[in-house]
């Protein structure tokens, strides 16, 4: 009999041979890795994915559900997409919340793992009775919204469709996978799906996993939903995450002009406080969520777009853009094309600085110019700038060709810097190739540690170390090695949340995270899992990700920050200064506290 909450198996589809098989997952594996990110990492290690090129035919990609998906627990309708990242060549797990998770689990599998490559652009159809790889070349070039609408029309409304946009089809290394306006955004999972010639996955099913204690679960879920309306989530409900902007600006931790500044003169103009006055605003939410943090703002030409802190920062201050229409249009364009907004903004901001300093010949690409940012976003996907032929206009300083600007931008900031050379890597805003989110690590030094050691690269979702910076526990501009356990605690907690899966915005609602999460798992699965055991699950998952990276070629040198952030003080704040020695001391203390050696190696 299956463990309640699970189907006890995953679906493995070889797209080359069009063979599908059902593979059992042992109950002890489920208990050790839960689901979502944790189970996904386990499956990828099991598949030997660490040593395979992420865009190769043999590379696996897993859509992973969780025991809580389909339950009445608020914010639990989420899925994880786990693969080796084509941007970082390290482990990548991106999460999205939507009805795709519920429908995907109803197919009767705890995960859907794809390998191989379809012979032509196709849609993968999965329901609990059949699995079909259907050629769909007519969908080529369609945006995410167009693809999902076309697939909905063709297959019927009961299918939930996750898709890639043109960016995924062209294997842009920071392409997303989308469903219903939500994105598995970071690390380029969309490129991996594109490399498999899969434009969309459509799922439906009738299989329901049982719950161990249905009555208790419904009662718990009801109480949790009631609590989710309290003050801990008021910010997300009423303002959305974009309301961070003015505070971060005030504290000089708002990355601006490619991290050349920590505050932005135009912040007020693009703040949600200002946008609400000038534009129509609506609210939305992921499936099965009582918080509803999504805030959409109207565009001048009609339609609306979801705005959150990260896309606002990346396509606004980071590129010096104070024109709200351009920022919103850029968010919309990234969503349609299927591009990760943080990596898009980071890469374009880096290119703007390269152009400003003469490292690339693109005088039109300037900080503060919204039109040039929009043009650059389109060029990422088009790979082609008709006005600027390859070797002539976009040549690097040493005279060698580096392709047109679109091709350069499509690489992401790290690869782009390596092509340009001339030490531009020192100001490429990335860690392990993943562009840095909107927290200046010089003024938020616990987060600096979180970014540097992150297995996915610079990441605010797998490490919540900024919470510590924004507390009395540390001096955010003078963080000491004695405090690293606090950063570890946020990583372990995130690993558990991403495996249960629950939304991070619920964390303020839970008074005792491990105790209440154990109770949720007990009600769904019947396990008498203790808070201590669950804590260990978090550690195990972080270790598994690290193991994956070691197998993939990780070295201690990549746990660092760009040289700019280790050598230059934030101009507006003389105390916001991080040194290589300070960061190294934090990393060493972190490694030892994790039980690894001082450099960060662990036995694999």
């Amino acid at each position, binding site marked *: 009999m299956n463990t309640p909450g699970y189907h006890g198996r995953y679906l493995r589809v070889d797209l080359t041979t069009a063979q599908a098989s059902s593979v059992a997952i042992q109950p002890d594996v489920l208990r050790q890795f839960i689901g979502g990110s944790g189970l996904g990492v386990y499956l990828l290690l099991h598949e030997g994915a660490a040593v395979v090129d992420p865009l190769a035919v043999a590379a696996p990609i897993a859509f992973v559900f969780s025991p809580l998906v389909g339950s009445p627990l608020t914010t639990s309708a989420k899925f994880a997409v786990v693969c080796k990242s084509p941007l970082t060549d390290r482990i990548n797990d991106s999460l999205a919340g939507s009805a795709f998770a519920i429908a995907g689990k109803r197919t009767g599998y705890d995960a859907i793992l794809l390998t191989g490559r379809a012979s032509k652009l196709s849609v993968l159809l999965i329901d609990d009775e059949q699995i079909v790889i259907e050629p769909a070349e007519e969908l080529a070039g369609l945006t995410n919204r167009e693809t999902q609408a076309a697939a909905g029309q063709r297959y019927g409304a009961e299918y939930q469709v996750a898709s890639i946009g043109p960016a995924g089809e062209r294997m842009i290394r920071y392409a997303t996978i989308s469903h219903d306006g939500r994105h598995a955004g970071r690390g380029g999972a969309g490129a991996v799906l594109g490399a498999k010639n899969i434009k969309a996955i459509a799922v439906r099913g009738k299989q329901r996993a049982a719950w161990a204690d249905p009555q208790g679960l419904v009662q718990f879920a009801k109480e949790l939903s009631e609590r989710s309306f309290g*003050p*801990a989530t*008021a*910010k*997300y409900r*009423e*303002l959305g*995450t974009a*309301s*961070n902007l*003015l*505070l971060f600006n*005030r*504290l*000089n931790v708002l990355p601006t002009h490619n991290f050349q500044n920590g505050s932005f003169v135009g912040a007020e103009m693009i703040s949600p*406080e200002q946008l609400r006055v000038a534009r129509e605003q609506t609210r939305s939410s992921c499936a099965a969520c009582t918080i509803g943090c999504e805030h959409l703002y109207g565009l001048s030409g009609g339609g609306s777009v979801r705005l*959150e*802190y*990260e896309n606002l920062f990346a396509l606004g201050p980071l590129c010096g853009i104070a024109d709200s229409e351009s920022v919103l249009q850029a968010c919309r364009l990234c969503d349609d094309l299927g591009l990760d907004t943080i990596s898009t903004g980071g890469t374009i901001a880096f290119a703007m600085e390269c152009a400003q300093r003469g490292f690339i010949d693109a005088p039109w690409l300037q900080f503060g110019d919204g039109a040039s940012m929009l043009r650059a976003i389109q060029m990422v996907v088009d790979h082609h700038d008709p006005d600027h032929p390859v070797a002539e206009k976009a040549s690097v300083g040493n005279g060698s060709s580096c392709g047109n600007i679109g091709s350069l931008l499509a690489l992401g900031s790290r690869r782009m810097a390596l092509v340009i050379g001339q030490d531009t890597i020192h100001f490429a805003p990335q860690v392990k190739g993943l562009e840095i*989110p*909107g*927290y200046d690590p010089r003024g938020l030094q616990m987060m600096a540690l979180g970014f540097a050691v992150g297995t996915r690269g610079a990441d*605010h979702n797998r490490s919540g170390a*900024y*919470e510590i910076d*924004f*507390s*009395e526990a540390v*001096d955010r501009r003078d963080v000491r090695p004695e405090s690293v356990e606090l950063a570890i605690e946020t990583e372990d907690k995130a690993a558990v949340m991403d495996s249960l899966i629950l939304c*991070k*915005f619920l*964390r*303020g609602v839970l008074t005792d995270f491990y105790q209440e999460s154990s109770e949720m798992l007990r009600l769904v699965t019947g396990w008498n899992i203790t808070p201590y055991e669950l804590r260990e699950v978090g550690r195990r998952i972080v270790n598994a990700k690290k193991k994956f990276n070691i197998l993939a070629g990780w070295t201690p040198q990549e746990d660092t920050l760009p040289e700019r952030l280790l050598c230059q003080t934030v101009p507006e704040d003389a*105390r916001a200064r991080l040194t290589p020695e300070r960061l190294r001391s934090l990393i060493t203390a972190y490694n030892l506290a994790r039980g690894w050696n001082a450099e960060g190696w662990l036995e694999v």
Partner: protein
Amino acid sequence: MLVNVEFYGIPRSRAQVPSASATGVTLGEILQDLAARFPALGETCFHGSLLKPGFVANLRGDRFVSDPNTVLQDGDKLLLLSMDAGG
């Protein structure tokens, strides 16, 4: 003792102004003064002289404080904000 208070996030939406002056020697006294003048702010964010969970204060853009006995200086800047950053 006059302190300049800046509001961010929910505190700003409740106070309906970006900043205000407040009088008091300690953080607790400042919060009570603000609650008297901005009842919606007080109701959502304070519990007497304490900040409710989910809200935090920052002194001069430097350190985060929550102890109601924290002594402020004349002319100090106090930031009131929603605690979770997130994004």
